[in-house]
Every structure is written in structure tokens, then in C-alpha cells.
């Protein structure tokens, strides 16, 4: 009997160790002007006469399911702020450091909260807080202490939070537009949302539901667990119900498994996956042919090789990297923080309260063409401010990130007429 206890206890320890974190010693004190801002220059300052604004980064850097996106996101943001510093910093007075307080959340809300508590007294705001459920774990504290944060997720809940400065349309809008696009391109009669639980998957599923109902389509939703080996049920449901359109919100390996196996079983309907369902490596997988035949990707922004000043600056700042739209998203997510910091310094109140006030006054943000300026509206009420334009891409072997655009920024009729009065995922 003893050995059974050993198994049970050790299994518990295994689970706990997966939640644990190994970290080095923490950073020393600073000559603080206000929380997260010093009159001393940044550790790797371009100009030693400027002060330093420290922004934290909490991302999925090693073991979590979104590491493949999170590492490029974080690298792109380091490059973004290095470019800002080189160009004179913020208001000619400060440079921004996003390299000193970088923490790994392993996509675990508990770890996220733990590492946030470690760095929160050292930073003015967060340059990145990756994930919806993870960020939800610290949201109360962010609000209580006015810690302005740039998310790395697109849940519709952020429309309703002043401290979270989202960029690009939510998963909910993305799915509405995907269904509207499919109505023109594929004329489906039934829609199935296959989605992960929580405010990533459920947000898109809720959007798909709203759009399906608006078009009078039959709608079903199938919640599926993460992990390519766990998709058996989703595939069974798809091949049994044979919907004309499947809206996918999973990870990339899950999506490839679902599309590949469904197609192998004779499924002929269409798939449209949200942005995180794609990874260029899928074009080398056994599901590649099925993906090319049946799959399209909806996206909140243009991909790596787009011809805008923002994209060009990004590519120039990241020489030699393998193209990945994690870089593109990370770069774009940084613009509102830059705009808010500039406004804060210009207004003269360099503090968390000053930064939040600056955010609340922003009606537009200059994304250097990566997104329309109105995507950066944080001043108006959520329904007015919610950005509702997304794109559609399709797999393409010759494109650097494996996808090319088939439909430029558009707002479908469903998203246009929808009233945002609460997070979508709560309505599924």
C-alpha cells in the first residue's frame, strides 16, 4: 500500500513543481522619482542624461502553450522600445526599459500573480501581460493601483477595463467578422464553434454565435481541451454534425490535428481559425494539404511582410529573425503605451495616476499604419471605442509567415450593429 502513497504524493509534487518558478536574485533599489520611474538613466541607456521609466513584462517564455508566440512578442517589444529610446525617448526626458523586469508566467494564473507581486513596486506599468486568464488574476490589483498594462491577448473583456490598453479587435469581433466573411465567400447554413474554455475560446465562440444568429444559421459550440492528443471528441463532433463552417479557437497544433483528421475523415466544410491557431510550421505537417484546402485565418492585424511604415520599422529593428507574427503583434501592442507615456510626460504628471489619466484622454494612437488610428481609442465608452475591423488570411507556402491576406481590414454587418455591453464570453 505504501508505494501507492508514494505515487500519489509524488504525483502531487509533480503538479506543484510544474507551477513553481526558479528565479535569480531580485534587483536592487533605485533612485526613485515615483514608482517605476527614476532620474537615473536606464541600465542600457542611449542618453545618460535622461531618466528611466521601467515597464514590466510577464509573458509565457518557456513552458506554457503560447511560448511560440510569446518569445517573439517579447523580443519585438524589446526592439520597439530600443527604437523609441534611440529616437530620443519619451518627451526628450525619459527612456524606457523593458528588459530589467521580465518574468515568465508559464501561462499559469497563479504564477502570473506571484511574479507580478515581485515586480509591481519596481515598474510604472506593464509593457506586456500575456494571456486572458493570467491577466484576470492580477486585474484587481492593476485597477486598485492604476497600473496601466498592455495586454498580449484580445479578449473583449479589455474593452471594459481602463487600465488595460488593448490593440486590435477582440476575438469576439474577429469571429463575428469571420462568419460575416464566410457568408459572402462560402455561404454556410450551419456554424460550429470549436473552442478552448475561458475568455480566449469562449470569447470567439460567443462572437460566432451572435453572427450565426444574426444570419439565421444553425449554431453549435464544442468546448475542447488544449493538446493535440485530446482532440478526438472535437473531431468526432465535426464529422458527425458536418457543419458548413467551423470557427476554431485553439492552439496551432490542436488546430492542425482537428483540420487534418476531419479532412481525412471526409469532412468538406470550411474552417476559419482565430489568429493564435496559426503557426508557419503547420505547412510542413501532415495536415498541410487539408489546411490549404479548407482553412483560413482571421487576424486582428496585418502579417509580418505588410508594407506599412510600422511593419518596415519592425523588420528593420529585428534583422535576421525567422518571420513570425508574434513579432508583429508584440510590436503593434506597444504603440498605445508609447502614446500614453508621451502624453503623460507632456502633461507633467509622471506617475501611475498621470499615466492612467493620459490613457483616458487618448482617442487615437499612431500605429504607423499597422492599424487604423481609431483602434487606439481609450477615451470613449466601450461600445463606441471597441475596434471592429479584422482581416482574413489564407495559407500560402511562399509567404514569410505562411499566410497571405485575402481580405483587408473590414467590419462585417454583425460587428457593426453589435452593442458591447459586457464581455462576450459571458454570453455564450
Amino acid at each position, binding site marked *: 500500500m505504501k508505494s501507492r502513497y508514494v505515487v500519489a504524493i509524488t504525483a502531487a509534487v509533480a503538479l506543484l*513543481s510544474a507551477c513553481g518558478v526558479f528565479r535569480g536574485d531580485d534587483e536592487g533599489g533605485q533612485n526613485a522619482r515615483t514608482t517605476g520611474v527614476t532620474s537615473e538613466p536606464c541600465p542600457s541607456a542611449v542618453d545618460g542624461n535622461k531618466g528611466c521609466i521601467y515597464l514590466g513584462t510577464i509573458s509565457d517564455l518557456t513552458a506554457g502553450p503560447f511560448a511560440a508566440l510569446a518569445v517573439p512578442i517579447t523580443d519585438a517589444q524589446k526592439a520597439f522600445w530600443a527604437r523609441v529610446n534611440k529616437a530620443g525617448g519619451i518627451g526628450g526626458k525619459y527612456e524606457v526599459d523593458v528588459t530589467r523586469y521580465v518574468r515568465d508566467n508559464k501561462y499559469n494564473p497563479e504564477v502570473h500573480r506571484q511574479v507580478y507581486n515581485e515586480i509591481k513596486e519596481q515598474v510604472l506599468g506593464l509593457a506586456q501581460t500575456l494571456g486572458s486568464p493570467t491577466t484576470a488574476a492580477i486585474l484587481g490589483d492593476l485597477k486598485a493601483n492604476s497600473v496601466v498594462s498592455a495586454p498580449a491577448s484580445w479578449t473583449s473583456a479589455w474593452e471594459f477595463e481602463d487600465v488595460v490598453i488593448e490593440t486590435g479587435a477582440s476575438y469576439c469581433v474577429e469571429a463575428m467578422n469571420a462568419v460575416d466573411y464566410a457568408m459572402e465567400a462560402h455561404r454556410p447554413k450551419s456554424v460550429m464553434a470549436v473552442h478552448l474554455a475561458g475568455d480566449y475560446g469562449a470569447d470567439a465562440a460567443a462572437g460566432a454565435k451572435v453572427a450565426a444568429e444574426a444570419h439565421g444559421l444553425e449554431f453549435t459550440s464544442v468546448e475542447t481541451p488544449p493538446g493535440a492528443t485530446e482532440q478526438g471528441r472535437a473531431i468526432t463532433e465535426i464529422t458527425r454534425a458536418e457543419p458548413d463552417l467551423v470557427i476554431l479557437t485553439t492552439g496551432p497544433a490542436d488546430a492542425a490535428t482537428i483540420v*487534418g483528421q476531419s479532412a481525412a475523415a471526409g469532412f468538406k466544410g470550411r474552417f476559419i481559425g482565430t489568429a493564435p491557431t496559426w503557426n508557419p510550421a503547420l505547412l*510542413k*505537417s501532415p495536415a498541410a494539404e487539408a489546411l490549404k484546402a479548407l482553412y483560413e485565418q482571421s487576424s486582428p492585424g496585418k502579417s509580418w511582410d505588410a508594407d506599412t511604415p510600422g511593419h518596415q520599422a519592425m523588420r528593420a529593428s529585428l534583422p535576421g529573425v525567422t518571420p513570425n507574427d508574434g513579432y508583429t503583434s508584440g510590436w503593434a501592442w506597444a504603440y498605445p503605451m508609447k502614446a500614453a507615456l508621451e502624453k503623460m510626460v507632456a502633461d507633467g504628471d509622471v506617475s501611475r495616476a498621470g499615466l492612467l489619466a493620459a490613457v483616458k484622454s487618448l482617442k487615437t494612437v499612431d500605429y504607423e499604419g499597422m492599424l487604423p488610428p481609431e483602434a487606439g481609442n481609450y477615451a470613449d465608452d466601450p461600445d463606441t471605442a471597441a475596434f471592429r475591423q479584422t482581416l482574413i488570411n489564407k495559407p500560402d507556402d511562399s509567404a514569410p509567415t505562411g499566410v497571405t491576406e485575402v481580405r483587408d481590414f473590414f467590419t462585417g454587418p454583425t460587428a457593426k450593429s453589435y452593442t458591447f455591453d459586457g464581455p462576450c464570453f459571458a454570453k455564450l
Partner: protein
Amino acid sequence: MTGTLETIIRGLGNGSVYALLALGFVIIYKATRVISFAQPALMLAGAVAVSYLAPVTGFYLGALLAALLIAAVALGIERVAIRPMVGRPVFVVAIITLGIDVVVRVVVNSLIGRDVRQVGDPWGFDLVALGPLVVQQRWLAMMAAAAALVTLLFAFFRHSKYGLAMRAAAYDQETALAQGVSVSAVFAVSWALAGFLAAVAGMFVGTGQGIEQTTWIVALKALPAIIVGGLDSLGGAVAGGLVIGVVESLFQSYQGAYLPWLGQNFAIVSPYVVMLVVLLVRPYGLFGTREVERV
């Protein structure tokens, strides 16, 4: 009916992989009385090794070389990290295997990188018709490979000198030592065998869908399998793995239609429910040895 049979074949395919993993756990447990939590990392390492070797050597040779490589790695781990702990409480050694698991996974993760890696298998998601049934080729490949390996393994334990030594050492280490069996060699061979089996299992986990950093979690399904089959029974590990695979597959296909009140995705917990039921009825597993304790 054909749908049910296809579901069962999918379950047997996945179950074969769980069985290979479970065999690794049981072989180490029988030899050393330790549950090795390094199995998930060795499984992942095997899959990654195949993904690097297959483009160079072709898939089949790559798979064999990868399995031998991981067997050597496991042997090395046993020599370096486990050997010095002989005689210490098994709990301590089990914790050490947890540490080994983390270390190996960190190394392997850096080899996986950001993208999904493909193992280069010839099956992909291709189907084959078996009379009225249409099933994925890779499930049949999993079953065939597991059947061949299990047959070889059982023949090894029954007919070879080392196999006999391992059985003797598992039965009573001191007596086996007294009879001239090198218990140290038995430990080493058991780790190598477990590494070999984990690598083959990992390769099959990667067929079709590829491998990513989180794939190691699949190996934990072997835990309910070994409890169901009985911790110290090789046959039990095979049976446990197959039972877990089939139950999981049946829940994936039918729970939504027949037991919707259990909520979506009950299939994930179904292996643990089976484990609990078996523990209630037969606390030592279906084929485990009943431990006699004198009070």
C-alpha cells in the same frame, strides 16, 4: 456499429502508446521499487530525437536509432543520478527522478524551439479500409509496434538470462545477489528498457500531429494505466494502457450524446475515474500482487 468499432480501434491505438509508457514505469518499479517520473521527459526526448534523425536516415532507421539513443541516455541517468542513491528511501529517489524530468525537458525544449516539430512518419492522417471500417493507419501502426515490442519483452523476461536475472531481482534482491545476480546491472537494464519504450511511445505520440513543448503531458496518462493494471505487473501495464485508451476514446465519441450532464470533455478525467473504481474494487490493481502485511 462501425462507428463504435472505429472508436475502439482509435482507443486501442492510443492505448498501445499508453501501454508502452506504462511498461516503462512498471519495469523500473519492479526492479527498484521507484516510480520514475522521468518517463515523460524521456518520451519527449525520444520524439524529438526522431524528428531530427528521420530527415537524415529515413523514418524507420531514425526511430530505431532514437530509441537506442534514449535507452543510452536513460542508462546514463541511472548510472550518474540514481546509482549513488541505492539504499536510500524510494521516496527520495522518486523525487530525484522528478528533478531529472525537469532537467531533461528543459534541454529537450530548447531543441523543440517555438514551432511544432514533425517526426516525419509515413502515416500522417492517412486512412485505411478494414472491410467496412475506415481507420487511421497510425493507430494500426501503434498497435502493431506495441504488440511486437510486448512480445519481444515478454520473451526476453521469460527466456533470456538477463530476463531471468531481472525477475529474480524483482522477486527478492538479496537472494538474487546471493545467487550471483548483478542487481546493479538489473537496475541499469531496467532504466535502458524504460527509456527505449518511452522513446518509441513518444515517436508514436508525434505521428500526424507533431510534437511541441507541452506534449510531455501525454505521458501522465500512463499513471492511471499502471494503477489500473497493478504497479508490479507487466501484463497489467499493457492491459491498463489499453483499457485507459479505449475508455477515453469511448467517452470522446459518446459521452456528449449519452451522458451530456457530465459536462463537455469528461473524456479527460475518465482515466482517473476508471482508476478510482478499480482501486475501490481491487486496491492492488487488476493484476497487481497483493502485499501481505503482518501487524
